[in-house]
């Protein structure tokens, strides 16, 4: 009973961060700030959802898999954000040069 209500609270909090990330993606002016908003969704949002689901995991193997999913998602999101940011900076530098 306690676990269920905690799960709902944590998953709801995670969903709020996802919503914030989506709103940031839609409303922020340039690509770098949009990625900043998205990274909140990936780290905190997914982390809160995984924390909520951990309370519902039937055994430690499932719990470890959930944690593994969170860590892998963070790793790939962080690397991809860096790559996109580098591409954005390169493009704006090239644009400034040819002007």
């Amino acid at each position: 009973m306690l676990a269920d209500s905690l799960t709902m609270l944590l998953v709801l909090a995670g969903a709020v961060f996802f919503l914030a990330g989506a709103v940031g993606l839609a409303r922020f002016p340039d690509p770098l700030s949009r990625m900043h908003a998205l990274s909140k969704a990936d780290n905190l949002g997914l982390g809160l959802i995984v924390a909520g689901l951990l309370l519902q995991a039937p055994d430690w193997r499932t719990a470890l898999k959930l944690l593994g999913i969170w860590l892998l998602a963070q790793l790939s999101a962080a690397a991809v954000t860096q790559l996109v940011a580098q591409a954005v900076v390169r493009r704006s530098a090239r644009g400034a040069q040819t002007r």
Partner: protein
Amino acid sequence: MSLALDSLLALLLVTLALRTVLAGAELSAIIGFISLGLVTALAWVKLGSIDVALTEAAIGSGATGFLLLTTEAALRRSRFVTAPRIDTPESDLAPQGEDPGSPAAGPALAAITAGAVAVTVAVALLTLPEPAPSLSAPVVAALPTVGVGNPVTGVLLAFRSLDTLLEKVVLLLALVGIWVIAARPARVADTVAVPAPPGPLLLLARVLPPVGTLVGLYLLWEGADAPGGAFQGGAVLASMWILAMLAGLAPLPRRDDRRLRLVVVAGAGLFLAVGFAGVPLAGHFLAFPATVAKPLIVAVEAAITLSVAATLALLVAGQMRRPGA
């Protein structure tokens, strides 16, 4: 509650599909296509077909998306193959984008055909009798004779194994077709390796492949009793190899590499061999003797996984090194 979620998912699918079709730039359309694949995978999960969802995410969204992105990049590069100088006046530049002479009849015809197919499928689904005719009960009843717990694997590798065998051959033919078309010598710029791999890409390519290989093999092993299987495992393995190739940490495959060709053929080859062995041992082609059914299925699945991994990676990697390069 479930109806609300399903309606939301359906609405998302249609909106995303429209967004993809009506996108102005090719890159936006490709990105829309990749996201559409992922949302479709969610829809498959909602329908209870997790194996199909895994394949949709890996192949339909991942591999196809990668192919489309590299193609778009190559096309974009070739449009500037004689790069216009910065001071060329606008009027002298060749027209980019849509050829004004092409009629709009093509897309309109495609839209009408797709709509007609969708309406037909919807009508057929909605007028099915209740309960809908299905073979799931006989399949589940016959599963213990095969020894696997996942009915999808049972159907793919035992009850309808001929279809799976033909699929593997078709995959092989697709690879041969691409090799024939892409036979001209590759410029380094055409290969999939990134010229100066940035730090984060190197990090991913160093950390992910061990984990990804484990996940791929796990998917293969679990496919016997839970959603998973040879194709999904092979797709994950292929993506790990591609990642290593992208970052330059693995050499591009050579065009005349005999061991690679052997691996590519091994899946369909072993499947055929087991099929023919079924004639003397169990009565007819592709029949498994009851005592060794499960080990045979696992062996064939392992060979298929390696073959699918090699074939997918080669399909997506495109140009390979010339012999001696």
